[in-house]
């Protein structure tokens, strides 16, 4: 009944194991190593030259507005002020002209999978469509071309963007304040934990332990350790949620707080979060919520109503700023009334006259006196300048586009899409928590039922041949061979149906013990890469000297 009615591969053909000398499958070798649109690209240092540049400078003569060169007498060369520091030896860089540069990077780009190409089901990473309006807005000169230390009267609009986004984040989460400067999720976590530590120290009650469930993202324990805390595990109950009774029995005067991801990395809502918060507060601790999965509940429930004291929001997840192949992110932290006074500098604040102020080291104390009755006692500064402005403009555009109604729809569609995947595949893939009820924005499967020797990795690589980026693998750690699938709300039903078809097919092969999966992928720009060799003998930079100009390079002589 779950079988697709329409299949793009009716004959049931599957990739075979290439046999030595069997060219029927893979076709003949080519002289260049390229295969039609699958193009090899040498390293920059193999094609560039030290004497080549793609940038021209106007030295003596400057073109006027009409584009006509006007000879202007060059100012006599001034005396160098570099002294003995002036460089004499070459740096070892190479350059390309503009056409070569554009081609080099365009060819590289085609070796990447991306959301723009297809569904990108990385659980907990939230690979949703990145609206192009956001890119346009971020490039408006008033945002892209302003310096962080300009006099504040020349950047009022930038401060208003920060403040307007802060307003939305506070209202969407039902919290009291927000620290905007953290640069990414992990930096936001650190900010939240440091607020907790500062609040505890302010009342002379330094504590030692932070409780973190085993299912947490690795940044949670790393962050708490960085802030000087000992990490202890929070036990889980049989349906994967925090075991409230076990947690309560561990709480005590040495516990600074708990770090809980909600919805959790298992894709489940922590039903007892309010009770957890109450119990933690009762013993004087604080509740940190990892907000990586806020996209599942935005507009549906406010973390502030569940007793959360601090939560970072990954603007690059919930609010669609692009992941960019690994950043930049942005991790504002919303804070409860108890923690808000400890937020780091700088911050923005709108006073009754409507003016948005930038509060930095200089006026932090006086501003606190004047507007907050002296309650603000920041713990310091986490970064130079004011945070990820380029992400703020994008996130605000996204939020304004959706509005309160659209954001609620985002959460509903994200959850609907994930449950659709869960229920369409649970007959073929083991879904360890499917019995406990609906999932949130991501569906979790395990490798139970795979044939002997078949792994989650094999399934993932098989999915690559089907034209998909694999799901998150082996995370969370609490599920054997975990596969965490997050479709997001920006996928159509048709896109989901095709993905389900592909995953079903690969899952069936894994269960049947199809050996070809062990050597997948076959159709990607590279076959499986040797990660052991990479780690054993690390080669982390190109070591050769670059060739002198005029030397033919690999691509020119047809080398592979």
């Amino acid at each position, binding site marked *: 009944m779950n079988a697709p009615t329409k299949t793009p591969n009716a004959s049931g053909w599957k990739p075979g194991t290439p046999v030595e000398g069997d060219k029927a499958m893979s076709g003949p070798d080519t002289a260049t190593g390229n295969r039609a649109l699958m193009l090899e*690209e040498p390293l*920059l240092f193999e094609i560039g030259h030290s*004497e080549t540049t*793609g940038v021209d*400078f106007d030295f003596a003569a400057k073109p006027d507005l009409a584009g006509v060169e006007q000879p202007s007498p060059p100012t006599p060369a*001034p005396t160098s002020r*570099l002294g003995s520091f*002036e*460089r004499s030896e070459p740096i070892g*860089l190479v350059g390309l002209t*503009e056409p070569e*540069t554009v081609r080099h990077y365009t060819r590289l780009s*085609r070796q*990447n999978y991306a959301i723009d190409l297809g569904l990108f089901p990385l659980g907990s990473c939230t690979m949703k469509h*990145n609206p192009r309006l956001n890119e346009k807005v971020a490039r*408006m*000169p*008033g*945002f*892209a071309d*302003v*310096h*962080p230390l300009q006099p504040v009267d020349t950047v009022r609009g*930038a401060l208003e963007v920060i403040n307007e986004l802060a307003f939305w984040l506070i209202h*969407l989460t039902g919290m009291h304040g927000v620290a905007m400067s953290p640069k990414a*999720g992990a930096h936001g*976590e650190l900010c939240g934990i440091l607020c907790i530590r500062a609040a505890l120290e302010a009342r002379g009650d330094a504590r030692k332990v932070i409780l973190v469930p085993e299912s947490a993202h690795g940044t949670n324990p790393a962050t708490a*350790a*960085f802030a000087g805390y000992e990490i202890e595990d929070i036990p889980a109950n049989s349906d994967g949620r925090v075991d409230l009774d076990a947690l309560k029995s561990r709480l005590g005067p040495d516990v600074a707080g708990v770090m809980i991801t909600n919805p959790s990395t298992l894709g489940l809502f922590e*039903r007892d979060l309010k009770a957890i918060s109450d119990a933690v507060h009762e013993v004087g601790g604080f509740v940190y919520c990892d907000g990586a999965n806020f996209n599942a*509940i935005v*507009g549906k*429930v406010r973390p502030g109503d*569940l007793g959360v004291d601090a939560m970072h929001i*990954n603007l690059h997840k919930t609010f669609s700023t692009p*992941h960019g*192949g*690994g950043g*930049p992110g942005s991790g504002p932290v919303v804070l409860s009334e108890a923690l808000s006074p400890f937020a780091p500098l700088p911050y923005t604040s709108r006073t009754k006259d409507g003016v948005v102020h930038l509060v930095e080291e*200089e006026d932090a104390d006086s501003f606190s006196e004047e507007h907050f009755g002296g309650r603000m006692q920041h713990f310091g500064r986490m970064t*130079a*300048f004011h945070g990820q402005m380029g992400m703020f403009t994008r996130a*605000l555009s996204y939020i304004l586009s959706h509005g309160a*109604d*659209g954001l*609620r729809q985002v959460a*509903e569609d994200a959850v*609907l899409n994930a449950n659709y995947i869960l229920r369409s595949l649970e007959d073929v893939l083991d879904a360890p928590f499917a019995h406990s009820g*609906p999932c949130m924005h991501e569906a979790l499967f395990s490798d139970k039922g795979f044939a002997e020797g078949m792994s989650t990795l094999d399934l*993932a690589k098989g999915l690559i041949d089907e034209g998909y980026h694999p799901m998150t693998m082996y995370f969370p750690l609490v599920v054997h061979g975990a596969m965490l699938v997050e479709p997001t709300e920006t996928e*159509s039903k048709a896109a989901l149906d095709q993905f389900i078809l592909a995953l079903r097919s690969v899952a069936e092969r894994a269960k049947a013990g199809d050996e070809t999966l062990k050597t997948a992928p076959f159709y990607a*720009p*590279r*076959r*499986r890469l040797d*990660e052991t*060799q*990479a*780690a054993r003998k690390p080669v*982390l930079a190109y070591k050769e000297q670059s060739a002198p100009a005029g030397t033919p390079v690999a691509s020119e002589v047809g080398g592979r």
Partner: protein
Amino acid sequence: MRYLPLTDTDRSAMLAKIGASDIDALFVDVPEEARLSGPIEGLPMHASEMAVEKHMRRLSKKNLAAADAAFFLGAGAYKHHVPASVDHIIQRGEFLTAYTPYQPEIAQGTLQMLFEFQTQVARLYGCAVANASMYDGSTACWEAVAMASRIARGKKRKVVLSGALHPHYAEVVRTMAKFTDDEIAGALPSLTAKPDDDGLIARIDGDTSCVVVQYPDILGRLPDIAKIAEAAHEQGALVIAVNTEPVALGAVKSPGELGADIVVGEGQSIGVGLQFGGPYLGLFAVRDEKYVRMMPGRLCGETVDAEGKRGFVLTLSTREQHIRREKATSNICTNSGLCALAFSVHMTLLGEKGLRQLAMENHRLACIAADRLAKVSGVEVLNDSFFNEFTVLLGGDARQIVRKLTKQDVLAGVSLGRLFPGNEALANGLLVAVTETTTEEDIETLASALEEVLA
């Protein structure tokens, strides 16, 4: 809603497939008393692309863009010309909308780019290995201090900061050290023509894990890293060199060549743009490969695939939080991937020749500016050495003067009063940065404006 592909018919069919009566049946685990019954009150509803663009444009116009002023700000963020092709390439969806390259078979584009980026940064810094980027220069600086503490295995706790380190960077180090038991020895910059290298050296002792020195420093001067490194190494301390203007390294010797052990900095100048302070690009490199396994952040390495073809992967990840959890070298996960791409593309366009030309053009114009400003009555140029940024002492509170000049669309520089508030001795100092985007006409505008205001 233009970003949501599901239709109501789809939603009904999918709910039927799931076996749920309505969407709220999927939110059954949210306690009923916490469930919101409708859109959050007091917030606007969805808006058209046109309306959002209009709203954002209105906010954008309240800012004075650097290109619309005679512009001389630096202090860790510099205005350079970024070639059009850089923005074109970073907006290709295959780069823009890709994730961290955890599946290397379908992420060779990002991985090869990172390998090239690491090589470019390592060569620029005179180092053996650079990582795949950090958030920005200030957080990279703190991570370097934390790494030096790890190398000292907690036996040395003192971190000596040069007084001429960017005050925001110093503040980040101080903030983080409050939580890690490192003892931070800071100072204020002295307004002297040469950096106080001897004073810095005198503060290094046997309990020092590292000494942090900025090059060029916050006042634009060039400290003698070789001399500082020699003294630090004698005491068994590491030298962390901080660079906030990578273009400078086209004109001066690299910190690695001069003996710095860890070189970190801000990469924003190359490819990234001002963006009101972020996102920027943290650069992180070590001179000696022996420290690689102590480094924070992602590293991309070369390997081969099952057919023997060269390929690239993220490697040495046993240092990182997703494997090592609380024992990781850093909690960093997301870094500045797309800014690293922008840097790498711009650096590729420049190449050795272009970077050196760019550097010399910056220096030439900065020298012209210094010479011209020195002729203004009431202006004294402090620096003996500088690259594209120098300090002038004005006959009055520089901060007030800067504010006054904005009315004539002159952004005169960063006052030391803004950077070091509450230090009367520094109040008359003004940092002036000059790049290839500065024209001689701009310099004349600044000089005349100062002449007028100081008269």
